[in-house]
């Protein structure tokens, strides 16, 4: 019945592409989370009036973040080809998409991290200092836990953007649902393939949104 309605869909190809998209997205989300938090912390801590107040470092970090945030993703992929080959050794397969995905998304996420950290009550940081907390204590026991709901809702938004980036990364041969929809669906005029690939992507996005919302609520004790 289903095969009659969707005659051109090869389900094992579809499943494989789904797994590739999931793999690219999840790996990129994890790396973006880590790199984004590091960059966000650097932006926050070097800002005026904060722990590591440092104008030059703040200005440089902010400039790098803004530049990478502004480059359209499709161009970023092309610019990063030599870097990717150096790092991964190839431009084919899901792994080749990951450097571009992370470098494209981390600056975007870093700004959200910075905003989240700014929301942390200065009084609480001061209370920790008055107890003799070190800088690491303040980062890992105050700043990050207190901004966790913001960090999680930020990574949720970022991960949904990442799913759509993976579709573009298909263009350079990274595979995944976007690649499948383009080659099998669009180029061969199999609109049923495009349709199923779209539904698969939507399902992934909805699940990510749901997990993100659930975790945000769970960590938010305000």
């Amino acid at each position, binding site marked *: 019945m289903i095969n009659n309605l969707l005659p051109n869909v090869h389900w094992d190809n579809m499943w494989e592409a789904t797994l590739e998209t999931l793999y690219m997205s999840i790996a990129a989300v994890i790396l973006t989370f880590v790199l984004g938090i590091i960059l966000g912390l650097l932006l926050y801590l070097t800002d005026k009036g904060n722990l590591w107040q440092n104008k030059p470092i703040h200005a440089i970090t902010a400039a790098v973040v803004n530049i990478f945030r502004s480059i359209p993703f499709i161009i970023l992929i092309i610019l990063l080809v030599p870097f990717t080959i150096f790092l991964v050794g190839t431009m084919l397969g899901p792994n080749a998409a990951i450097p571009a995905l992370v470098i494209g998304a981390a600056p975007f996420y870093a700004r959200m991290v910075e905003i989240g950290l700014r929301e942390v009550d200065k009084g609480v940081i001061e209370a920790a*200092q*008055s107890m003799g907390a070190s800088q690491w204590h303040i980062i890992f026991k105050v700043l990050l836990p207190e901004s966790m709901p913001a960090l999680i809702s930020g990574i949720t938004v970022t991960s949904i953007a990442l799913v759509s980036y993976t579709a573009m990364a298909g263009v350079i041969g990274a595979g995944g649902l976007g690649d499948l929809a383009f080659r099998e669906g669009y180029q061969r005029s199999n609109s049923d393939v495009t349709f199923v690939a779209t539904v698969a992507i939507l399902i992934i996005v909805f699940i990510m949104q749901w997990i993100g919302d659930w975790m945000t609520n769970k960590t938010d004790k305000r």
Partner: protein
Amino acid sequence: MITLKKLSKTFQTRTTSISAVDQANLEISQGEIFGIIGYSGAGKSTLIRMLNMLERPSSGEVILAGNNMASLRGKRLREARQEISMIFQHFNLLWSRTVAENIEFPLEIAKVPKADRQKRVKELVELVGLKGREDAYPSQLSGGQKQRVGIARALANKPKVLLCDEATSALDPKTTDSILELLTDINQKLGLTIVLITHEMHVIRKICHRVAVMEDGKIVEQGPVLDVFRTPEKKITKEFVKQVIEPEETMETIRELLGKDDGGTIVKLMFMGENAEQPVINELIRSYHVSVNILQGKVSKTRDGSYGTLFVQLEGNDDSVKEAIQYLKGQQVEAEVLEDDK
């Protein structure tokens, strides 16, 4: 315990420089509750924050528990800070942690082993009266309960000094009293030295042994609380003392009477102890030809005894009133004839 020597702090802004604390000298002894009172902007917060180097002094010295605080940096400063705790007007709890986890926080910082931490948390929860609320989050607590968590957290590492920056200013009068009681209790039980700043004189009256008055960054007056209540010297101190002993409504009535021609003579009596005024009033009525009309009386309890004020209206012919006043001035009570100051 704490010595401040010519302590000053100047804030440099783009246009001006603000002298927030100006040459403050202070000596606070072990086990004492020392109050610092002043209006908003007097520099109280800046002063207390210099005691644990949250604010670095521009000049002068802070000697606390034998440490010259300004000379400490890094690890040594962090260790010294574990002996000086602080509680805050807005509590400054971590909302992401439960009551028990908030109290555990300073113990984690001091690298106390897990088992000891839990034992200590249990003691502290009981000490501050929060048993049963260990697993609540700060957002589920009332202001008074939050401050109790703040106090428990501050006591976790068995500090020598507790600094209170307007610790009751965000609380209603009843809750304020319960927190002040808790502080007195801790002071007695643990022999902890407490420095508290406030703009409310009744806080000073209720729990402090000694008080310093701050105005424009300077300490303008200091002494035992009872002495300051009895003989305030500076204008600002008198204003603060009035807050407690002369309610505004009474002053209005008195001002009205003073404005009238037939308002009689109004005398303000000040006395020590709860009943010190009674024999004097009795004698006044018995032996002098005046009628005594009591307008308002109030006894203020301080830690070192009570101190009262009584406003009376004397009516009679001029000579009798004069004699009566003569008599009053010769007694244990202090008497002041109020004049119409309009």
